[in-house]
């Protein structure tokens, strides 16, 4: 296949893009046809044309921009807290080895625990407001960042540390010139994981408690039985998470140009 495409001057990447996108278009057309033919119940699955038609309505009438802004602010607040607390606690636990050995497995257990199920508890503690959502995002994201920060610092090659010592670097210089740059790749992996968990929790809790931005909009539209609107908003949330995913990759590349 690739040999044929290469001979015709089409790169494999272009061919793959058109194959993927073409299959998606064919799938949507097939669904449209099946619904129109009555083989799929239109009261359960709306026609793709209706969903596309609902985009403008959802954007204009449901204040998607405002809801997006709210979800973004919640994510920003939660992300900032995750970065500060996660990286800070990782550094502290690296510095104090006994504490690290005592608590690291607990943090790993916390990272694998379904913390999102604590949302009723957070509702009781913080009330039905943005703080519950922000704190849920924070709780989901911070263990991954802490663990990856520790991993990065502990994994610094011995020879780098010895070189620093040979140059008589102060502990602060040793940290900023040797340990931190060496740990950055791992810290970024942790940040990306943490931010993804955070976003999942934030939109999820918005949906579950019917409060906030995009998650609440899906719940509202579903309760109004506005199926095209629900599908259009789900598409919008998927788009937001794709943008977020791409953005974190770009930020990482910008901060680590050599990576």
């Amino acid at each position: 296949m690739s040999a044929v495409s290469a001979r015709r001057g089409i790169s494999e990447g272009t061919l793959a893009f058109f194959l993927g996108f073409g299959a998606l278009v064919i799938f949507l057309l097939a669904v449209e046809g099946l619904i129109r033919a009555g083989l799929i119940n239109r009261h359960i699955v709306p026609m793709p044309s209706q969903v596309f038609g609902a985009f403008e309505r959802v954007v204009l009438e449901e204040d998607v921009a405002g809801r997006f802004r709210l979800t973004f602010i919640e994510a920003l607040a939660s992300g900032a807290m995750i970065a500060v607390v996660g990286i800070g606690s990782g550094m502290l636990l690296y510095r104090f080895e006994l504490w690290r050995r005592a608590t690291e497995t607990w943090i790993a257990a916390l990272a694998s625990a379904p913390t999102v199920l604590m949302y009723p508890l957070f509702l009781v503690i913080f009330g039905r407001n943005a703080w519950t959502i922000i704190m849920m995002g924070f709780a989901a994201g911070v263990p991954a960042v802490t663990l990856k920060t520790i991993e990065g610092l502990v994994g610094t090659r011995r020879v780098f540390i010895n070189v620093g010592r040979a140059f008589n670097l102060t502990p602060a210089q040793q940290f900023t010139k040797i340990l931190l740059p060496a740990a950055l790749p791992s810290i970024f992996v942790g940040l990306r994981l943490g931010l993804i968990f955070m976003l999942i929790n934030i939109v999820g809790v918005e949906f579950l408690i019917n409060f906030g931005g995009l998650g609440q909009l899906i719940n509202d539209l579903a309760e109004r039985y506005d199926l095209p609107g629900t599908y259009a908003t789900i598409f919008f949330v998927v788009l937001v998470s794709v943008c977020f995913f791409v953005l974190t990759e770009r930020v990482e590349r910008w901060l680590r140009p050599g990576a």
Partner: protein
Amino acid sequence: MAETGSVTAPAPAGMSRFPANRVLALRICIIVAILAVWEATAASGLLYRDVVPSLGKIADALAALLSTPSYYWHLGVTAGEIGISLLIGGAAGLAVGILFGSHRLLGRAFEPYLYYLGPTPKIIFFPIMIMWFGVGPGSKIAMGVISCFFPVALSAAAGMREIDRVLIRVGRSFRASTWQMVMKIYLPAMRQPIVNGLRLGLGVAIIGTLLAETKLSNRGIGYLIIQAYSLFDMPKMYAMLIVLFVLSIGANALVGRIGRFDAAHRN
């Protein structure tokens, strides 16, 4: 539920600066301190009544919960939903992962969609699942399936690409059928990525299923948790969260241990 796989390896015997008993002593101190702070907060009345119930009340609720037969019925419902979703989502993810991993063009064409949909909060699909599968266990299983599918598929596709080409050529030179290639070459060669994918998949399937139960259900652990919240029965809610966390972490550790045992057995 995340599987970061990033606990730093313990230092070899004799290398650690701290003996195990000092670590254990610190752990006990931390636990005692947390419990003392909790009890003091409960007794102080600083927070709204019963938001932080006393440890005695939580222990009583835990004992009552574990001695209630209906709790095990609800636990069975949730476990069944999660088990079925892991089976369906895992098998579908594995099939798609093998397909995308073995065909370069298909992988390049469709894997980006998996990468983009993977980190999307799956709970937003719940209204659709209700429409498709009803308000019963079907929609909860479906939530578990779509949660579990993505990590398994991505992990299997990545694992498939890492299989030693020699093994694949050996299979082909023996004129193995597709089924034989999958059973004799692909699956044994990519056990570790599959176990990792299933571990991640199990975690998100638990979350997907339980969140769906909290949103709309009349059975299962998620339903019990949201019912305890509605009745403001905080000790019971804490007790259920404790049991749930222990079970989830245990299940996750069990799958990880199976993977490690398998790897050690092979080596």
